[in-house]
Each structure stands twice: as structure tokens, then as C-alpha cells.
């Protein structure tokens, strides 16, 4: 195996290894993502059974602070029923953060280093925008936004939706893959313990990318409710 093959293989760029169960084959990232889903759901179930109203444990305090921070961020951005948006955005943040951090475990790849995974997440966001927009504003108001300020802006709006979904998927995939490639090259050139500092950088990158993805999703969904937000603002000005 050449050095380049080693680095690209470590980054998963030579194709994800697959598991075959009979004629059904799944990629490693799908298995890892599913395992992460199961682990997260199990942890959530375990957490729920141990939540205490009085004298909460340290981990519960941290968890409550994190959930409240997410809730607060969503409430600040979403004009209507933010509690319905919270599960999607909160899950995106938590899931992407943990998926990014899995790459720090030797022998495992971040599922977010697979374009199929990030594409799936971006696609969910893509459909979530009109879903919540129509739910909040109604069909007519939501569709009217695509023809504003001029009717011929419609294709540009659609193109904007598609490209931002694509960038959402590619940004996360590119950053995580790039980080893994960089660490692989360093490992190849400098030796076994040198990339440790880059692992810390990977941690920062994981946090940052999770935040960016979730925040962009939140902004897109909030943008889908723009007409409602404008109405609320006009109502507020009239009241004042």
C-alpha cells in the first residue's frame, strides 16, 4: 500500500468499507451512524429515567444547561411555536457533534465524513424548511415568498434552496474529511504521537461544524417563516 493510499484510505476517500448481510450491503458510516443513533437513544432513555427534580446530579445540571441553551437559541430565532423546531435542530447539533467526534476514536471514521450521511442530513433540512414554513404561514403565503419581490425570482429562489442544501452537505463533509486527511498526512510524515495536537484541532473543528450546520438549519427554517416574522414585526410596530 502506497503512502497516498494509506492517507486516502484513512480518510475514507477510497470508498467506505462495506458490511454484507446476504445480498444486502451497508457502508461502515451507515453502521456507525446507526450505532450512534442507538447509543444516543439509549442514553436519552437512561437519562430520562434518572432525571431528578431535587438535588440533580452534576451531569444532569450540564445536560439541562445544554438543552436550555439550545431551547433559548431556537426561541430567539423562530417566531412561531419554537418547541416544534427544537427537536430537529437540537438533534442536529447533538448528533453531528458526536458523529464528528467519533473520528477521534482510533479505527473509526466520522459518519459525517461520508457525503451520503451529510447529504441525508442536508436533505432533511431541505424538506424541513417548507414543512415548517407551510405549517406556520400556510401554503399561499409560503409560496408567495418564492415570487417576491418579482415573480421571475422564483427559479433563483429554488436554485438558492438547492445550492444551500448542497453546500450544507458538502461543507460538513469537506471539513471533516479534510481534517482526517490532514491528520493522516501528519501521521505519515511526522510519526505516531505528533498528530495529537491536531486531534485537539479536530475536536474544535467538530464543535464548530456541528454548530454551523445546526445554526444554518435554524436560519433556513426561520427564513422559511419570514412572511410570518414580517407580519409579527408589522403588528408589533402598529401596536407601538
Amino acid at each position, binding site marked *: 500500500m502506497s503512502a497516498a493510499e494509506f492517507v486516502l484510505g484513512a480518510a475514507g*476517500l477510497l*470508498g*467506505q468499507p462495506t458490511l454484507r448481510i446476504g445480498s444486502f*450491503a*451497508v*457502508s461502515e*458510516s*451507515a453502521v456507525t*451512524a*446507526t450505532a450512534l*443513533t442507538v447509543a*444516543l*437513544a439509549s442514553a*436519552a*432513555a437512561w*437519562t*430520562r429515567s434518572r*432525571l431528578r*427534580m431535587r438535588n440533580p446530579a452534576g451531569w444532569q445540571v450540564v*445536560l*439541562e444547561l445544554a*438543552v*436550555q441553551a*439550545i*431551547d433559548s437559541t431556537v426561541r430567539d430565532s423562530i417566531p412561531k411555536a419554537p*418547541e416544534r423546531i*427544537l*427537536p*430537529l435542530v*437540537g*438533534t442536529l447539533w*447533538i*448528533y453531528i457533534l458526536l458523529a464528528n467526534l467519533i473520528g477521534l476514536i482510533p479505527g473509526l471514521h466520522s*459518519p459525517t465524513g*461520508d*457525503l*451520503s*450521511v451529510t*447529504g*441525508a*442530513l442536508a*436533505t*432533511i433540512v431541505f424538506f424541513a424548511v417548507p414543512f415548517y414554513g407551510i405549517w406556520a404561514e400556510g401554503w399561499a403565503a409560503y409560496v408567495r415568498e418564492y415570487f417576491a419581490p418579482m415573480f421571475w425570482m422564483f427559479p433563483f429562489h429554488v436554485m438558492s434552496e438547492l445550492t444551500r442544501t448542497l453546500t450544507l452537505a458538502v461543507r460538513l*463533509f469537506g471539513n471533516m*474529511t479534510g481534517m482526517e486527511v490532514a491528520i493522516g498526512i501528519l501521521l505519515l510524515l511526522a510519526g505516531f504521537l505528533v498528530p495529537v495536537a491536531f486531534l485537539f484541532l479536530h475536536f474544535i473543528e467538530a464543535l464548530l461544524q456541528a454548530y454551523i450546520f445546526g445554526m444554518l438549519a435554524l436560519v433556513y427554517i426561520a427564513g422559511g417563516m419570514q412572511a410570518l416574522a414580517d407580519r409579527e414585526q408589522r403588528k408589533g410596530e402598529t401596536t407601538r
Partner: protein
Amino acid sequence: MSFDWTTFILQVINFLVLVWLLHRLLFRPVLRLVAERKAATAKAWEEAQRVKKEGEDLQKAYENRMSLWEAEKEKARGKLLEEMQGERRRLEAENDRLIQEERERARAVEAHRLAALSQEAETRALRIASQFASRFLQDLATPDLEVKLVDRAIEEIERLPPEKIAEIRDSVARGGVRQIEVRTAFPLEEGRRDRLAHALNKACGRELPCECLVDPSLGAGVRAVVGGWMARANVKDELLFFASKGEA
């Protein structure tokens, strides 16, 4: 870099299931717990505020009660002070009155004592004077003195006022007087005895026999008894009269 539709579809399903599970198992319970805790905290805060307000009200009521109590205490103290001053004035007045009474009593006792002393001194002086006079007069009690005294008695009887004479006569008439008793320290001359008898009979308003007796205890002079009336002009009776004045 490759795109796998199986992974894509699995990931979509995985993520949507995870969204649903985390909503059920994490976000909703945690936010509900936080909300309940906030509500409990707010309730506890309200309860604390209520208790604090109750405490403040109680403190205010207590302070009001204290101020009222202080005012009442001051009032009671003033009243007590006033009563004490009144009682003091009353006691002082009572004391002054008692002192005055005691002083008056002492003054009266002292006056009485002085009067008694004066009386006693006077009596004693009289007694001494009487003793002295009787001793002195015993030396002077001579027939000549008796003559003078009898003459003087005759003059006195003759000069008695009409009321006295009427009284004597009435006494003689009611008493059934039969004679006049005349005592002298020395035997009287006949002429003087007649003159005396005549003056006495004239005073009695009738002729009564006159019994003349000699009584040396008289010292000098005469004592005439007509019923309940007596004419005295002798040393003994004078001295007795003098002494009796001192006794009185």
C-alpha cells in the same frame, strides 16, 4: 468520495427516528423538568415573598403595638407620677396637719403646765403669805385690833345695801331664826356689844336675843351668825379666806 443511496436512506430514517426519540426521551422531559423546577422555584419564591410580607406585617404590627404600649406606659407612668405627687402632697398636708395639731397640743400642754406651775406657785405663795400673815397677825391680834375690827364690822352691817338686807330678813323669816350668835376672840365691852346687837337686829328687821361667845381661835375680831347669813370680821376668817383664794 462516493454517494451511497442505501446509506443515504438509512441515515434519513435513522435521523428521523432519532429526532422523534430525543424529542420524547430528552428534550421534552428535560424542558418539562426545568419548567416544573422554575414553577416550583417561582412558587417557593412567592411563598417566601408572602412569608416575608407576613413577617414585615407582623414586624410592623409589633412595632405599632410597641409604640402604643410605650405611649400607654408613658401615660400610665405620668398618671402614676401624678398620683404619687398627689399622694405626697396629701401626706405632706396630713403631716403638716398632724405636726400643727401636735404643736397645738404641745402648746396647750405647755400652757396648762405653765398655768399649773403658776397656780401652784401662786398657791404656794399664798400659803406662805397666809402662814406669814397668820404668824404676823397672831402677834398683832390684840384687843385693840379686835375693837377696830368690831367697829369696822358694825359700820359694814349698817352700810349693807337694801337688797342684801332684804335677803337677810327673808332668810331669817324662812329659817325660823331665834337668836344671833356672836363670837369674839376677846370679851366685848358692853357698849360695843349693844351697838353690834343693834346693827344686827336692824339688819334682821326684828329683835333677836344675842348670844356672845369668846373664841380665841379667831385671833382678833368678830363672827356673827344669823341663820344662814354670817358677818365675819376677824383675823382667822380673813386668813382662811385669803388662804382659800390661794387654793382656788
